[in-house]
């Protein structure tokens, strides 16, 4: 029998195989992770822990495993981003306004995972309503990245965001994997900051039903794991057409794991010149070049491409996403659920409730979104952004006429420290400069850990694929993962 602490170091694939081989039980595996959650509570990765539910669920999994009826994720303990509504378990979006909200329903993605046998350990923290790149906007305190700088191990670093709780939980071995959601980089950037694999699938792959909405035309769920294979396994249990989501694509679910053939010979890999802005750090540049070399060595051909509207992706996003958010968050009004601050009139109740319930970043985005949709400004801002969005999507479509996949850095830097950013919100938004274009175009994007910074922090590279071609993205990522041989772990894990 494997030692309890070792159980948390398994990959999802190895744990799956171990369960099937009866090397350990789902209850043992789950208990090992619950212990890890206890030890790492200071990292603040979970908003709500559900150890009892997890153990109950694990016992059921053991019964199923015993009968040979195991699902694809049977008995595997995972974290669930607290943006997925979970029936009977508080779902907060890390906002005061939903602090006590207990959904009477289960999101399609979390239901799919549970149906596949996954054991949910609890709800992981995020930036409030998934708006942020650091996890510092959570109403329940920041999440701490388990990785430390060599130069200053005492500095507390952010895990990135918005899926920072999920990233920390997986990196610190509190969960084998976790769900994330990605609107502009919220899976990929924290994956990069925490040395994980994270994939945002094609828009429409995962149902958005039951996921607290931030920006409906961009939001996508995806897995955050420690290996590419794990991502392929978990993705397969999350996706699928959902008739309850009008934007859920009626496409077949491929066997993502089977796509990991190890063979990428002859593939053309686009290297967009616009992703090398002035001031891109040497470290990131070098990592990117190393990535190109790995691909060449594996028989793929790098091709320089141009995505000319790349620099306009960030301003486009910061019109589109706040506009949608301002409308999506109108339902938090203190009437049917969530926080209410009393007022003498209905309007006063609304204004007080929403001012008290939403944090600074959320309020800021609601105000911007309200402004860009308001009379007289709609065309200049919103319509303009929608047009540029098409140009950005067209750039990718054109590039994919000649290349099979695109390689870029995931984020412009390694994880930064809590409180190391300036007050200008735009500076924070720059974290997502490489991930946002993919989101605007609705394409699949994956971040994989490709190396460590000089200061010992993980750095990620991003692979972008054609619509609904997650298989190529995963296949290339798998090959790169083998070449990169990323095996570092956060100190103390």
């Amino acid at each position, binding site marked *: 029998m494997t030692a309890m602490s070792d159980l948390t170091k398994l990959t999802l694939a190895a744990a799956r195989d171990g369960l099937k081989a009866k090397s350990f039980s789902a209850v043992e595996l789950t208990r090992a992770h619950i212990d890890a959650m206890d030890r790492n509570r200071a990292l603040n990765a979970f908003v709500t822990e559900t150890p009892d539910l997890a153990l109950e669920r694990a016992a059921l999994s053991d019964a199923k495993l015993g009968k040979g009826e195991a699902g694809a994720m049977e008995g595997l303990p995972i974290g669930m981003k607290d943006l997925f509504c979970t029936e009977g378990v508080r779902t907060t979006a890390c906002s005061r306004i939903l602090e006590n909200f207990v959904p009477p*329903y289960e999101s399609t993605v979390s239901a799919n995972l549970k149906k596949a046998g996954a054991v949910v350990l609890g709800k992981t923290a995020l930036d409030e309503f998934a708006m942020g790149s650091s996890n510092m906007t959570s109403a329940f305190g920041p999440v701490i990245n388990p990785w430390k700088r060599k130069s200053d191990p005492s500095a507390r670093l952010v895990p990135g965001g918005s899926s920072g709780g999920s990233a920390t939980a997986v990196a610190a071995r509190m969960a084998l994997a976790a769900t994330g959601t990605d609107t502009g980089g919220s899976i990929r950037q924290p994956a990069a900051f925490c040395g994980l694999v994270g994939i945002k699938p094609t828009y429409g792959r995962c149902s958005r039903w039951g996921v607290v909405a931030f920006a409906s035309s961009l939001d996508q769920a995806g897995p955050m794991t420690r290996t590419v294979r794990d991502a392929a396994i978990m993705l397969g249990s999350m996706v699928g057409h959902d008739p309850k989501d009008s934007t859920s694509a009626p496409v077949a679910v491929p066997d993502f794991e089977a796509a990991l053939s190890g063979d990428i010979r002859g593939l053309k890999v686009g290297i967009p010149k616009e992703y090398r802005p002035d001031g891109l750090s040497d470290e990131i540049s070098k990592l990117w070049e190393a990535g190109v070399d790995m691909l060449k060595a594996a028989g793929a051909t790098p091709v320089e491409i141009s995505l000319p*509207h790349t620099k306009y992706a960030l*301003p486009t996003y910061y019109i589109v996403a706040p506009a949608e958010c301002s409308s999506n968050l109108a339902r938090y009004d203190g009437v*049917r659920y969530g926080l209410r601050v009393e007022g003498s009139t209905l309007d006063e109740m609304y204004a007080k409730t929403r001012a008290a319930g939403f944090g600074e970043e959320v309020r800021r985005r609601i105000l911007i979104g309200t402004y*860009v949709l308001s009379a007289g400004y709609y065309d200049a801002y919103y319509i303009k952004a929608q047009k*540029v969005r098409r140009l950005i999507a067209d750039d990718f479509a054109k590039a994919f006429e000649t290349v099979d996949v695109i390689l870029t850095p995931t984020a412009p830097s390694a994880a930064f420290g809590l409180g190391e950013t300036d007050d200008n919100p735009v500076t924070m938004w720059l974290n997502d400069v490489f991930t946002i274009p993919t989101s605007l175009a*609705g394409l699949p994007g994956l971040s994989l850990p490709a190396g460590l910074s000089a200061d010992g922090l993980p750095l990620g590279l991003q692979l972008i694929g054609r619509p609904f071609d997650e298989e190529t993205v995963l296949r290339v990522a798998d090959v790169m993962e083998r070449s990169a041989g990323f095996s570092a772990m956060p100190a103390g894990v």
Partner: protein
Amino acid sequence: MSLDKDTVRKIANLARLEVRDDELNHLAGELSNILQFVEQLAEVNTDGVAPMTSVAHMELPRRADEVTDGGYPDKVLANAPERNDGFFLVPKVVE
């Protein structure tokens, strides 16, 4: 575009967000800064480009006209801050 305090007050009211008077200056500055950032889009030539509202390459799905949902007032009301007799309650509205 630089926002003045009155405009901030106006959009805060549209968004039903209470904003204190002493916050207005700071917010106006911050929002103006953001607007300046996004206004670089003005330099992109978008003549003849159709606005893109969705990246989903599919037709709008339609469901059959059948009663498949509802009938669970307890669930609907379970999280209500104030409820009575099957209704949600709010401060009285004068029409």
